[in-house]
């Protein structure tokens, strides 16, 4: 046994270098497998094929990428790392810290990524001053999706403050409909919590609590107020929310059973797929009280290092990903917005245009924040520990006061 251990240590946990691929092929590990997004990714594949670079597709869906990350670890450990891997937020930084990612600075300098990619996003694409991944998109997560017919019928205007929002919820409830369509899965609970926290405490509070993990802020009254507001939201959710997939919640809004859903911009795809159009059948607006802020998560492709130099095909892939054409084509389909702020919004629908404008504004005014719920504020261990508390509180396991205490403990254990 001793021998096995030494062997494993000696061989090193990182045997990334020895990929057996030919130089002119990229093997891409990703989790975009549903109709639209996979088809959109095909654009990238064709683009590379035109340059004579083959695409070896390695899709592994599940758990919002966690399944793919598990596979990645197995592949890296076995010394068979893929060339490029779809990754999110802190995962990129973690792998960069292990020294596993290739340096893309040459491409970045050549194409001026520094000036077109928002700074908040660069935090997750650069490590030690080096670009290590190519961002594909920016999803913003503080959207509210609303059924326009219900709002019109009840005379509800788009709410812009928490109080207006609560009043709107009451109205819907009085009319016998479900005010909020919600799926009770930890990440969905956290997505709502994210928006509520931002709205309750503002950007300073958000940053201190979730990025800096400041204990005083975490245990503050504002945090308690945030949990109280979550309880208000809970009281406007139907009884069957637990475990529901987000898209079934979206279907409730589409079908007119519920008025609002708080969900990231991918929800738009469901509306479009059901032949609904923005501003006519459904509305998209920022969570009341967060009109100026954008909380985001961004999909990126990190390149696994194959030696001293970044591979030619990896460079080509990174360049192709950041080309304005692909950014536009892909994001129109995906529902997200381009990761660079200089892409024309011509091809986008009303919600997409709004998203692009909001992102540009937020990036310029320092109001662009990584979403805690989507792993762009703190590392996976802390994020999941926060999920536990948020979900437990949302399900009534304990009150707001206890939740605040639990939150602090959770951060302490996992820090």
């Amino acid at each position: 046994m001793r021998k096995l251990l030494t062997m494993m240590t000696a061989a090193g946990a990182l045997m990334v270098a020895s990929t057996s691929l030919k130089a002119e092929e990229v093997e891409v590990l990703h989790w975009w497998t549903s109709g639209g997004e996979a088809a959109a990714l095909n654009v990238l594949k064709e683009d590379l094929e035109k340059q004579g670079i083959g695409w070896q597709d390695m899709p592994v869906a599940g758990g919002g990428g966690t399944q793919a990350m598990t596979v990645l670890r197995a592949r890296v450990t076995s010394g068979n790392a893929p060339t490029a891997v779809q990754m999110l937020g802190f995962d990129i930084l973690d792998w960069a810290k292990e020294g596993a990612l290739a340096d893309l600075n040459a491409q970045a300098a050549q194409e001026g990524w520094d000036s077109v990619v928002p700074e908040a996003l660069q935090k997750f694409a650069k490590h030690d001053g080096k670009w290590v991944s190519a961002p594909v998109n920016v999803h913003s997560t503080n959207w509210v999706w609303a059924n326009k017919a219900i709002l019109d019928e009840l005379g509800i205007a788009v709410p812009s403050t928490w109080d207006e929002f609560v009043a709107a919820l009451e109205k819907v409830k009085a009319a016998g409909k479900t005010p909020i369509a919600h799926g009770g899965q930890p990440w969905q609970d956290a997505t709502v919590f994210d928006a509520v926290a931002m709205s309750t405490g503002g950007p300073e509070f958000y940053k201190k609590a979730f990025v800096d993990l400041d204990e005083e802020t975490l245990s503050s009254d504002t945090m308690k107020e945030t949990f109280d507001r979550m309880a208000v939201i809970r009281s406007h959710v139907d009884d069957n929310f637990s475990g529901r997939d987000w898209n079934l919640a979206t279907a409730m809004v589409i079908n007119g059973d519920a008025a609002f859903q708080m969900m990231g911009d991918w929800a738009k795809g469901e509306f479009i797929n059901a032949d609904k159009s923005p501003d006519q059948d459904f509305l998209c607006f920022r969570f009341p009280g967060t009109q100026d802020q954008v909380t985001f998560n961004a999909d990126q492709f990190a390149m696994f290092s194959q030696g001293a130099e970044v591979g030619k095909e990896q460079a080509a892939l990174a360049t192709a990903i950041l080309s304005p054409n692909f950014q536009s084509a892909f994001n129109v389909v995906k529902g997200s917005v381009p990761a660079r702020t200089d892409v024309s919004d011509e091809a986008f629908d009303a919600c997409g245009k709004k998203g692009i404008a909001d992102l540009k504004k937020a990036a310029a005014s320092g109001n662009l924040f990584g979403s805690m719920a989507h792993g762009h504020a703190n590392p996976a261990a802390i994020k999941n520990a926060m999920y536990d508390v948020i979900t437990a509180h949302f399900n009534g396991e304990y009150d707001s006061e206890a939740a605040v205490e639990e939150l602090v403990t959770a951060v302490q254990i996992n820090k």
Partner: protein
Amino acid sequence: MTTAPNPQATVETATALTIKDTQTGRTALKPARLVLYLLLALFCLYYLLPFYVMLVNSLKPLSEITAGGMMALPDDWTTAPWASAWSSAQVGVEATGLRPYFVNSIVMVVPAVALSTLIGALNGYVLTKWAFRGSTVLFGLLLFGCFIPFQMVLIPMARMLGLMGLAGSVSGLIFVHFVYGIGFSTLYFRNYYAAFPTELVKAAQIDGAGFFRIFWRILLPSSGPISVVCIIWQFTNIWNDFLFGASFSDFDSQPMTVALNNLVQSSTGVKEYNVHFAGAIMAALPTLLVYIVAGRYFVRGLMAGSVKG
């Protein structure tokens, strides 16, 4: 099931009821049978319900599903989801459907099942007919290995496959399935051969037959039933495995379950439930087929020894 080797116990238990009834003067055998059939039918319902949900939803357009009524029969019957799942659904960047992955799974499952069954048979043979000091303990250790959680072995296994040069290859995947299938296949064959008359083996030995000859000529020919059990078990487990298939395959050897999972699990895309269900039934067809075709031999196989300890 009228071909059991022993005189039918079925017959006995059934007559038992009859005799009893006449003895005590109770009549009404008929209502008892009725209740019996009713009970059996009720259980059929329990077992069929989830399949019903899958089947009806695979035959309706998506709009009917999202509009509610997931339990209802389709208003508008369609086989489009099936066609889509088979050949045109998006499971990766290319819209290939599940079709190409079938081959990948078969290429992996068949050798893995064959290998673990064969080695299991040999092990069972040694452990019963050539038992030595400590062989029972060895068997116990082997059996305990069945309980190791697969999530735990993932990383060290990846390392070992890398060291053996099997990373990301079909042979690597076959090897993994073989390694973790061996415990159960040994269990089945050991219990089966334990009931096999040792006198026959001894007689053959006296006649000068060697180790392999006895196995080949005497035990193997009568191992049909237990092989069916073992093959069904291994086939089901390996065919349905996701974790190993996803982690140890390469881009061109991903098995069926990984493709199915890709079809079903997309997190931020539109979910086409009807296609998902069609794909799920499709992916299960080979195992279902094995159960239906080999099912009758299955109970016979279990009966012929595996449950006799």
